[in-house]
């Protein structure tokens, strides 16, 4: 700080302090007000465990879907020229700026029982996504995948593709080029995108409750359970569950901090 020759600036320091406090205080509040004495019992209640388990598998499934479908999409957007590309990019990243509950309604109109795709599906096999755990995964994917795609796309397009030419000229097959050159070079943005998508999926609320509904053990993820608890006055349960989510998220953030700085 002083080595760079820039003096100490009280205005910047002050504003930064306020910003830091803004985030630290609520988290501190959670820790202080937590019902520590009954914590274990609260967290291991069947509702809490159901909610946490559901959150875990749904968010992991969402992340896996993001990887499987989001990677090719990001590749397409970064590497291939085609007409209407701007439109595709706009539409696939729209969920990022859309209020999640709007996303939920849109999902109902498309995949609900009377939806564009949902209706033929229901008539054909009698299955519809709302009220099911797959429905939760769909809702979470809708809001989380765009984050993955955008992050990965930027990593792919900022990479020097001529390095792939060099690898081919050295005798590497396309798969080897991908494995030994492309992947290592986009690894930071790949990791960042995955973490972003996962954490967005964990915290998803509006689209989930609107599209998938709320049923413990089936569609009641942790954020829903927390909301139900706090709105019925069971603040202690809400805080306990919230703390679990905070701790898990913090652990993931810290664990991936250094490696997800883009190359």
């Amino acid at each position: 700080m002083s080595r760079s020759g820039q003096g100490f600036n009280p205005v910047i320091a002050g504003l930064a302090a306020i910003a830091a406090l803004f985030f630290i205080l609520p988290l501190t509040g959670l820790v202080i007000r937590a019902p520590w004495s009954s914590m274990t019992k609260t967290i291991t209640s069947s509702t809490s465990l159901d909610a946490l388990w559901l959150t875990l598998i749904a968010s992991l499934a969402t992340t896996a879907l993001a990887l499987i479908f989001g990677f090719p999409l990001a590749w397409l957007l970064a590497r291939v020229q085609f007409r209407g590309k701007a439109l595709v990019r706009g539409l696939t990243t729209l969920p990022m700026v859309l209020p999640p509950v709007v996303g939920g309604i849109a999902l109902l109109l498309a995949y609900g029982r009377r939806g564009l795709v949902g209706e033929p599906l229901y008539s054909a096999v009698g299955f519809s996504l709302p009220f099911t755990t797959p429905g939760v995964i769909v809702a979470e994917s809708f809001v989380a995948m765009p984050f993955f795609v955008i992050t990965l796309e930027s990593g792919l397009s900022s990479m020097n593709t001529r390095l792939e030419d060099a690898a081919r000229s050295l005798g590497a097959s396309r798969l080897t080029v991908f494995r030994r050159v492309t992947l290592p070079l986009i690894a930071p943005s790949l990791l960042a995108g995955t973490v972003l998508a996962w954490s967005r999926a964990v915290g998803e609320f509006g689209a989930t409750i609107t599209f998938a509904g709320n049923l413990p053990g089936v569609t009641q993820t942790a954020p829903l359970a927390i909301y139900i608890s706090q709105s019925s006055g069971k603040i202690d349960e809400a805080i306990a569950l919230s703390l679990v989510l905070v701790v898990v998220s913090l652990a993931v953030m810290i664990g991936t901090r250094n490696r997800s700085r883009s190359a």
Partner: protein
Amino acid sequence: MRNDRARMGVAVICLAIVAMLAAACGTSSSSTVRTTSASQKVSGTVVVFAAASLKDAFDQIGKQFEQANPGVSVKFNYAGSSSLATQIKQAAPADVFASADTTNMDTVTNDNLASGPKNFASNTLEIMVGAGNPKHIKSVSDLANSDVKVAVCASDVPCGKYTQEVFKKAGVTVQPVSEETSVSSVVTKVTLGEADAGVVYTTDVKAAGDKAAGVAIPADQNVTAEYPIVALKDAPNKDGATAFINYVLGSAGQKVLESFGFKPAGK
């Protein structure tokens, strides 16, 4: 160098203290309140926290109240009664609380945030199904069929408690596909066609018009929901609160409630 660090630390602490003091001192009420104790003339804003099932009726009452009292504006916050009670206990700035059951009203009065609630209306439950009743549901026991998707209110919401009572009275175990946070969400799930049936208030079925159909619940299985209303002790607009409650309890308000399908209060 060391001086810089010390100075920054002091500045941070000072600015943080200033920020916290500003936050603590600045909790002034939002509405412009001019409560004149002597006159009966009401003014300003009246904030009403009302159960979701009261929406259509209270919107109408609110309009009429504003017409009768120029210079007043009524603002509504509709949600599940338990959610509203929680907000009130967290010191949300409300003038009036109208709950869909006495249990949630009690949590507010027990905390000494209000006293002397009065029942102003009652409601019964009804099964709501899609227009034309495609699944041919005729009774509460039909809801137990595995191929019927039933949405209900979550059990901490008044309508949810009432629903559980109905199921108990009918001797039926129903597996819902979703427990919604307010009765309006149940209505949405049914009218959108996602759920085949939902247990809602009679007034909700009436309000849905031709978007849905209703299946009556016989009196021996049904419950009567009593709706109490109260002015909050910390109401920013106490006169406004009293005037509004009087309007609701008065003939004009009761007429509106009746037109939306509410029944008069028991007791």
